[in-house]
C-alpha cells in the first residue's frame, strides 16, 4: 500500500502532503525533511526508487514539482509510478494545464481529487471520467461564497 504522498517544490517546500496511515507529527516532519533531501536534485537519469527506513520511496519529477510516495516493500514500484501519473493527469484535466500555482492556491481541490483516487493508501478508481464526474458533482454542492469567490479571481 501507499503510506504517504508528498508534493515537494524544487526549493523543498511541501505543496501537498497526505499520510494514509498513522505517523506521529515528529515522524511526519522527519519524513518530509528526509524526502526533500533525498529527492531534490537527483538526476532524472537515475532510478526513481530509493530504500528509506522500512519502506521504499518511489518518486518522479513533474515540471517544478516532485511527487514522492512511500510504499510498503511488497509494492510493485512500476505500478506506483503509474498511479502517480494517473494523479498527475487528473490534476491536469481538472485544472486545465495544471501548474504549481494552481496547487498552491487550490490545495484543497487537490486533496479532494486525491480522495477520489486513493483511499487509505489503496487505489479506488481507475477511470478518470468517473472521478472527474464525481468531483464536479461535489463541487456543485459547495458553498459558492467559499469556493467560487476564492477561485474565480484566478
Amino acid at each position, binding site marked *: 500500500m501507499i503510506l504517504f504522498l508528498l508534493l515537494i517544490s524544487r526549493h523543498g517546500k*511541501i*505543496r*501537498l*502532503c*497526505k*499520510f*494514509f*496511515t*498513522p*505517523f*506521529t*507529527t515528529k515522524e511526519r*516532519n522527519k519524513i518530509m525533511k528526509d524526502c526533500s533531501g533525498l529527492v531534490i536534485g537527483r538526476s532524472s*537519469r*537515475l*532510478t*526513481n*526508487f*530509493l530504500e528509506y527506513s522500512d519502506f521504499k520511496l518511489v518518486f518522479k519529477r513533474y515540471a517544478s514539482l516532485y511527487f514522492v510516495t512511500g510504499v510498503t516493500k511488497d509494492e*510493485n*514500484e*512500476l*505500478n506506483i*509510478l*503509474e*498511479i502517480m*501519473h*494517473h494523479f498527475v493527469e487528473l490534476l491536469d484535466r481538472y485544472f486545465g494545464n495544471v501548474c504549481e500555482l494552481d496547487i*498552491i*492556491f487550490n*490545495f*484543497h481541490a487537490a*486533496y*479532494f481529487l486525491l*480522495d477520489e483516487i486513493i*483511499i*487509505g493508501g*489503496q*487505489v*479506488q*478508481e*481507475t*477511470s*478518470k*471520467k*468517473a472521478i472527474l464526474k*464525481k468531483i464536479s*458533482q*461535489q463541487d456543485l*454542492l*459547495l*458553498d459558492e461564497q*467559499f*469556493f467560487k*469567490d*476564492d*477561485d474565480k*479571481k*484566478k
Partner: protein
Amino acid sequence: MSTMKLKEFIKAIRNCKQAKDERAVVSKESALIRNAFKEKNPKNRHRNIAKLLFVNLLGYPTQFGQVETIKCVASDDYTEKRIGYMALSQLMNESSELLMMVTQAIKNDLNSSKSNFIVALGLTSIAEISTEDMCRELYTEVKKLMRSTSSYIKKKAILAAVRIIKNIPDTIDDFMEVIDVLINEHSHSITLATMTLIQEIINIEPERVGTFRKYTKVLIKILKNLIHSGYAPEYDIQGIKDPFLQVRIIRVLGHLGEGNEDASDDMNDILTEIATSTEGSKGAANSILYECVRAIMLIEASSGLRALGINILGRFLVNKENNIRFIALTNLHKLVNIDYNAVQRHKTTVIGCLKDPDLVIKKEALDLIYQICKNTNVKGIVKELLNFLLTAEKEFKEDLANKICMAVEKYSPTKKWHVDTVIKVLTLAGSEVMDNFICSLITLIASTAELQNYSVNKTYFSMKENLEQSGLQQLGVWLIGEFGELLVSGQTMEMDDTPINVTEEEAVETIEKVMEHYKDKGDKGDVIIQYSLVALSKLTIRFESMKGKIQELIQNQVHNPNIEIQQRACEFMKLIDEDWDQHRLAIFEPMPFQGDENMLVDATERAVREEGEGDEDDLTQLKREAAPAQTHVPEESPLDDIFGINYDQQDESPDDNFDPLGDIFGGMGTDAPAPPSDPVSDPLGDIFGGGSATASASSGLGSDIFGGSPASQTPSDLFGSAPSAPAAPTYIAHEDSNIKVLFNFERDSMDSSTHRITAVYTNKSSSVLDSINMQISVKKYLNLQLFAVSSSSLQPMPTEQVTQEMKIQNTHEGKDPIVLRARITYTHVASGQKVVETKVLEGLPTGY
C-alpha cells in the same frame, strides 16, 4: 476577526520576502483564527480551517484547530463538513485522543440519507484515520454499506473495511461472506477494491489463503475478459486495459497459486498469455509484466512458464531505463535460490551494471553478484570486482570491499588465495573493511603454520607503503606481534632468491610509525594503537634486545587521553616488570587456534593451496612484491610446543564469576599472587575481567587470553573470542526484538540425506508471546515432515523454550542445498501486536 480570504492569505504569505515576514503573517493570522474559535463564531469557520491547513503545510503548529475541526465535521453544512473531514485527516492522526469525539458524527454521516457524498466522507475518514475503538463502533455500518446499491459507496466501504480488519482482525470472519458476493460483481472499481481486501486478509492471516482458492477460476475469468474486452477509453492507459486492475488480480492469483499445484496449473495459461502478449515498452506494460514475473516466481509454475518469466527479467536487464534494470536485478536476486543457473547466465551483464553511474543499481548488482558466487567461480568474479575496487567512489567502496571479503571468506578454494585476496583488498581499501574480516584472516593465518611466514612478510612490506589503510595496519601490527621472529629470521627469499633481511629494530620502528600516524585519529586510530600495544608486549619475548625500546613506546601511551589505551599501557608496563619474568613467556606465547565461530563458514579447514599452484601467481600486481618466492615452513611449528602445555585447559569452562587471572595462572600451576578480585578497581584484574562475559559464553578463556583474534573493535574484547570446538551445527532462522528461533541440526542415523531439525524458540521480550507458529514450505526435491510446536505460548523468561521438530529428506543431497521458506507468526501479548514474518532460509549448514 480576520476577514482575509483564503486566497488573499496565501498571496500574503507568498509575498513575504524573508522567513521572518512569513512568521509574522502566520502568527498574526493564527491569533485571529484562534480568537474567532474562542468567540464561537461559526461564520467563516470552514475558511479559517482551510487557512489552518495551509499553515500546517508550511510547517507551523495548528493543534488549536483540532476541536473546531471536529465541530466542522459534525456540521450540517456540506462545505463545512467537507473541509472538516479534509482537516481531520491532515491535522490529526490515530494518536489524537480527540478522535473519539468525532466517532458519533461519522456514524451519523454513514447513516445519512441526504447524499451519498456525505456517506463517502465518513468512509474515507475510517479508511485513513480510524482507531481500534472507532472501528469497533462503526464496522457494522461499514459492512452494511459494502452491500450498498451505489457502487460509489460500495467501493469506498470495501476499502474502509481494509482498514478495519487491520485494526481489529477478529472482524475478518464477518467480512468473508460479503466477499462471496463482491467477487461476482462486474465493475472495475469493485473488483479492484475486493482484490485489495483479499490481499490484506491474506497479509494478516495467511492461513486464509486456502479459503480464497475457490475464487481462482473466477479471477482467471475476470482477468481473461478484461484482456480480451473491446477498447474502453476510460480504462485505457498507453494501449493497456486497466493496468491497475490487472496488476491487482495477478498479485492475488500469485498468492492463491503459492504452494498449490492445482491452482497453479489453472492459472498457467492466463499468465502465459499475459507474459507473451502484453505489449508496449511503456510503464503500464512493464508494470504488468513485472507483476506477472512476481506471480510466476511465487506459484508452482511449469518449466515453460518459469522460462518465460526469466526471459522477461533478461529483457528487463538490458533495458535502457534504469528503473527497469533495477527491477530486473532485485528479482533475479530473489530467483537465485529457485533457479541458480538461469540467473548465472546473466553474470556478465550484471557485472557490467557495476559501471552504472547510479549507486542504487550498483549496490543491487553487487548484492546479486555475491549471490551468484560459488566455490567454482569465486576466483573469476573476485578478480573482476577487484578491478572495480580501484576506481570505486567513496560511497561504493565500502560495500564493494566488504562484499569481496565476504565472498572470499565463504567460497575461497584455498587458504593462500584467501590470504592474498584479503590483503589485496586491505591494500586498496583497508579503511573500509569491517573488522570481522580482518579477524577471520588472522584466525586463518594463525591456524595455518605454512602460511605464517609468507603472510607476515607480505603484509609487512605492504603496510609500510600504505600507512593510510588502517585495516592493513591492524592486520600487519598483529602479525608482527605474533610472528615477529619469522619476519626477522632472514630465511625468507625474494623472488630472485636473495634473502629478505628485516631487523628487529626495523620491525619495532614500523609499529612505532603506525602508532605515530594513528595518534589522535579517533576511534579507529585508537583501536590500532591498542593492537600496537598488544603487539609490542608480545614482542618483549620475541625480540629480547628491543625490550628497552618497547618499554619506552608503551610508556608513551600511559598518558593517552583514551582511558582504554591508558589502562592497557599501564597493565603492559606492569607485565614488563621483572616480577613477571617467569610468567611472561607463557602469557605472550603464540596461541593455538581453531576455527572461528564468527566466520561465515569455517575457512580454516580448507586446503592451503591448490595442487600444482605456483606461488608466483597474480600477486605480482601488488605495488611491491616482496613476498617470498617460497614459503618456508618453520621446522618446528611454533604452535606445537604450547599445545602440550596449555591446551588442556580449554575445557575448563569458567563460571560467570570466575576470577580469570587466578584461573589462568592457577591452571598453569604457578604460584602467581592472586590479584584482587574486584575487576573495576584493579587494572590488571580488569584486563582479563573485561573479556569474561564473552569468554564464559563460549568455552575456556584460560589458554586463550592473549591469542584470541580480536573479534570486534571494542577494546574489552581484545582478548576474547575463544574458539570453540565444533558442535552440532545451528542456524538462526529468525531473530527480532521479541523472539529468536534457532535451528539445531542433526543427521538421521539411518539415512544421511535426512536432516532432523529442532527449532528452539526463545522469548526475548518482556511480554508473553502467544500463538507461536511456524509454517514451512519446501521445493519439490525436499520431503518435509513438520511437527507441531511443543507449546504455542512462551513466557518472558530466557530459560523457557518452545521446540518444534521437523524432518527434511533431501532427495538431491549433495546436489542442491536445503532451502526453506518459513512463515513465523506470533502475538506479542503486551502490545497486542501480531507479527508475521516470511522469509527464505538459505545457507543452512550441510557438511556435518
